[in-house]
């Protein structure tokens, strides 16, 4: 996985290329609900995602570790952190989550990245008017 080319004097110049080495992946998601006035707290949101995981991947899936790093209740936008190996499971269960308390809902995955930093500088947010 790793490739390193070092100079003669490693203290002076060192270059390391890390490939697929990121332990976590970060997701920026947005929950769309049929009834826009419904409010979810962070705990409810996480619980909701866990039920989605449980229905698709069972008890093993429900045990998947992920963190709700940041959640904005007004926009229903959240930042998730998940181990890279669990990314596909989490993402697919988010996709298949279709209803929250008997109302239709959908998760929009806005951005997925192995670096948390890149979620803070998304040029698609640039508004010029």
């Amino acid at each position, binding site marked *: 996985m790793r490739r390193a080319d070092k100079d003669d004097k490693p203290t*002076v*110049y*060192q*270059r*390391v*290329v*890390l*490939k*697929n*080495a*990121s*332990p*976590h*992946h*970060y997701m920026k998601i947005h929950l769309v609900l049929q009834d826009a006035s419904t409010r979810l707290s*962070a*705990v409810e949101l*996480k619980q909701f995602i866990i039920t989605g995981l449980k229905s698709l991947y069972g008890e093993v899936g429900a045990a998947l*570790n992920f*963190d*709700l*790093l*940041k959640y904005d209740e007004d926009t229903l936008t959240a*930042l998730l*952190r998940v181990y*890279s*190996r*669990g*990314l*596909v*499971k989490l993402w697919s269960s988010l996709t298949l989550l279709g209803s929250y308390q008997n109302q239709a809902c959908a998760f929009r995955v806005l*951005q*997925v*990245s*192995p*670096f*948390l*930093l*890149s*979620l*803070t*500088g*998304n*040029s*698609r947010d*640039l508004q*010029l008017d």
Partner: protein
Amino acid sequence: MNMSVDLDQTPRSLLVCDWSSFLDDKNRVSSQVEQLHFNYKVSVLLPECSSAPAHLDSVLNSFSSFYLIRNLPIHELLDKQFLETAVYQGSVYGLSYRTRIDEDNCVALMPNGRLSLSLDKDSYQLLGVEGKPSRFSNRTNSRYVISIDLTDNSMAPGGRGYLRLLTGLMSRLHLTTDFLLSHHPGGGASLQPLLSRYDWSEHRPELHSHALTHLSCPELQSCDPHSFLEWLGAVDADISCENSSISFLSSLVCPEPKTTLSRVLRVSICGLLLPQDVHRLIQEIRCYLEQPQLESWLSLTVHGFVDSPVSWGGREHGVLRGGENFYTLLMFHDHTYHLHLATGAHDTCPP
């Protein structure tokens, strides 16, 4: 144990870490900075500092402004007058705005006079200019990248390639997008002939600053690159690292060993930013670091445009999931620096 089938695979990601010193002759910071043409956001983290120093502030305020042209037909970029006043003299930065590289046609005009078009299959077949299949399309090529050197002899006004591209863009593929333009060193004056014909507006890069208090901070010299970037991202996104490992919502913690900073200033600037300005900022920060201070480090993060068809140099860029292309420069008092360059899936390795 790998129980599931292909469920733990993630697309490739690349992180290049450089450790070097500004005093080293072989350091390549300036070339690495200049090769990322389309910068969207620069954020600077100043430890133990409550307000930006005057000269840093002046540099940030002197970032050159950029122009937004609405509904610009792309063939106007081949206009003879525009080529002579802007492309051949100085360097022009142009990027289509509000076009998504995974669905729309994207255009970029690079300072070295190269025009890069990332087109979907139908547009490519209409245009009739030779290009390459994109690295981001799978077996059935659904996206093509055309790269044209406008300073080439055949692309001089009246030349064969020039006429072919012009007729293609004028009569067959009517490519019209909102366009961001900037010019170095001429600024708006060089672009005026083009701007005057269309609906345009001038924009200043937006400056934000935010002061944080009581921030836990890892040991930077020895920190693992991914942990460091995670911490920096958490700081940038206002995510609290004060969690216990058993909390239900989040178990994000600051990597050990850690110290606590009483005050941290986060300054960020958004817009179409020129590498020249970024370079100027880096020089200014180096001067600032030479002053005796409490904390002797400073970090600077530069994000590229997600939807730019090129990342470092003229290499192809695309969005698979994140479209990340950014670099973080962590500078220390003794002129050493850590540079982390990151790109997403299918992008080539940064320089």
